[in-house]
């Protein structure tokens, strides 16, 4: 998922960088913690954990891609959206500067796609769903699972947008790019959702006090939350439905042909997605149905995972009383 330099146009990087900078500044402002606060080391540790987690790539059912944890939702659920966003940003900064994993110039875009969409967007979805389902452990896990999956799709969609803005050719069919990305990322998202859900149910069962309730001060306003949730959900639906729509006379095949042979070649590379996904051209050739099926299967798996993991958690949770000592340090 890490975009390398040379793929996005400098002006796109600039805009994305500016937005990310704003997001980080805003996060820092919202947190307003003492440096001595416990939140600082916990954020650092979360960053270290996500960093380690991202080194492990999971294979994707025979597809020529593998995904890795993004961690945005996990971090946001455990630390809140602001610290969560910071944690993931830090991971990306370190990866770019000290491991040359993801470009320096595309750092802003990477932060936008993974930290901001992951933590803020993911958290908005999570908080909204949790609002609806209640405060139980089961609700927490299912909300996080769904949010994790959507956050991956969101990141992918945003990448598409950035990429399309970068390739100056007007004629690229966004639906072609989108359907390819959806195929990959609805599946990568399943991995993300499973890991997030499993880890969270574990933590909830052992130390529920480490997972704050979304109503704590510092969460997003209700309206904003619903807006973002709606947006992300619409995105998922659009992504899944997109290939169907493109079966108009010129069709997906035509779009794909255009995409591959006519439009992109003179301008920008086609999808040099990242270092993990090897976007072989075939999927674009596939008829619409399998592409959408992948999206639908992904959705189904995520919902089933949400229910199952939530069920496991419900059985395990030991209520933890909170008494005098718990006033945050």
């Amino acid at each position, binding site marked *: 998922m890490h975009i390398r330099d040379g793929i996005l146009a400098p002006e796109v990087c600039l805009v994305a960088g500016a937005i990310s900078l704003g997001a980080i500044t805003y996060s820092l402002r919202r947190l307003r913690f003492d440096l001595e606060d416990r939140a600082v080391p916990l954020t650092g540790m979360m960053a270290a954990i996500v960093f380690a987690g991202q080194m492990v790539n999971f294979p994707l059912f025979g597809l020529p891609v593998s995904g890795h944890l993004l961690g945005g939702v996990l971090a946001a659920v455990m630390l809140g959206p602001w610290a969560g966003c910071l944690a993931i940003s830090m991971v990306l900064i370190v990866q770019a500067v000290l491991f040359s994993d993801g470009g320096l110039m595309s750092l802003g875009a990477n932060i936008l796609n993974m930290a901001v969409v992951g933590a803020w967007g993911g958290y908005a979805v999570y908080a909204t769903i949790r609002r609806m389902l209640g405060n139980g452990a089961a609700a927490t896990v299912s909300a996080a699972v769904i949010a994790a999956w959507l956050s991956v799709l969101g990141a992918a969609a945003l990448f598409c947008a950035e990429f399309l803005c970068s390739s100056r050719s007007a004629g690229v069919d966004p639906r072609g790019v989108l359907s390819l990305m959806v195929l990959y990322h609805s599946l990568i998202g399943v991995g993300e959702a499973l890991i997030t859900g499993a880890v969270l149910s574990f933590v909830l069962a052992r130390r529920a006090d480490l997972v704050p309730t979304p109503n704590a001060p510092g969460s997003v306003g209700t309206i904003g939350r619903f807006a973002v949730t709606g947006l992300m959900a619409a995105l998922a639906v659009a992504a899944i439905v997109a290939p169907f729509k493109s079966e108009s006379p010129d069709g997906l095949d035509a779009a794909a042909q255009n995409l591959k042979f006519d439009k992109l070649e003179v301008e920008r590379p086609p999808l040099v997605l990242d270092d993990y996904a090897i976007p072989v051209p075939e999927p674009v050739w596939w008829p619409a149905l399998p592409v959408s099926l992948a999206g639908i299967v992904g959705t189904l798996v995520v919902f089933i995972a949400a229910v199952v993991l939530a069920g496991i958690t419900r059985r395990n949770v030991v209520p933890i009383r909170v*008494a005098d*000592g718990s006033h945050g340090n």
Partner: protein
Amino acid sequence: MAHSDQPAMELRRLSFRYPNGRLALEEITCAVPQGDRVAIVGPSGAGKSTLLMHLNGLLPSPSLSKDEEAQVVIEGQAVTRSRLQQIRRQVGFLFQDPDDQLFCPTVQEDVAFGPLNLGLNRAEVLVRVERGLAAVGMADCLTRNPSELSTGERKRVCLAGILACDPSILVLDEPTSNLDPRARRQLLHILREFAGTLIVATHDLDFVIDLCSRVLVLESGKVQADGPTERVLSDPLIMDRHGLEVPWRLRR
């Protein structure tokens, strides 16, 4: 700064409950005069570590934010959130588990951590690091990674880290565990030379006899006995009741 007529450490009805509901300390009241060497003994789970951590404001006690009802007073100053920095400079704290204390990638950096935070300049810090490590016999381990040391070696590095801060009050939690007899003797020697106030929680009663003049017996978060070392430790009644044993040297 500190007047010598003020106790170095004073506890006023100190209570503490862990977030999981366990009451670890219950209304502890006591005072330690400047320069005294006091041992805190008691069975596992008595609350010794919990008590010591309060001297440094390391546990989130509600009293930290209330200036008037201070439960812990160090050299005349209530331990409150705003004074924590100041107080932590005065009080050197050795954790029971060395792994909790060591977090830098090299021994040198770890020992230097405290002095650097005191705002000393680089040369001074290096001198202190060297002195601290030499005192515990680990001068040749400067560049090693603490997680690749043996447990006893790690314990010694922790000690060096505390000594390098030059505190006026030393609070040691189980300093002799995992130390070999020679290192233990060296430690005894260092602590005897130390001019400030000393508060030690330990199960090593021989060490207490050699070092401390006063013993506090703690059990279930309450002070059960308090008195001169020899008298408390040679009293079979007290010792037996609180999971201890009269040491060989005091048996008649």
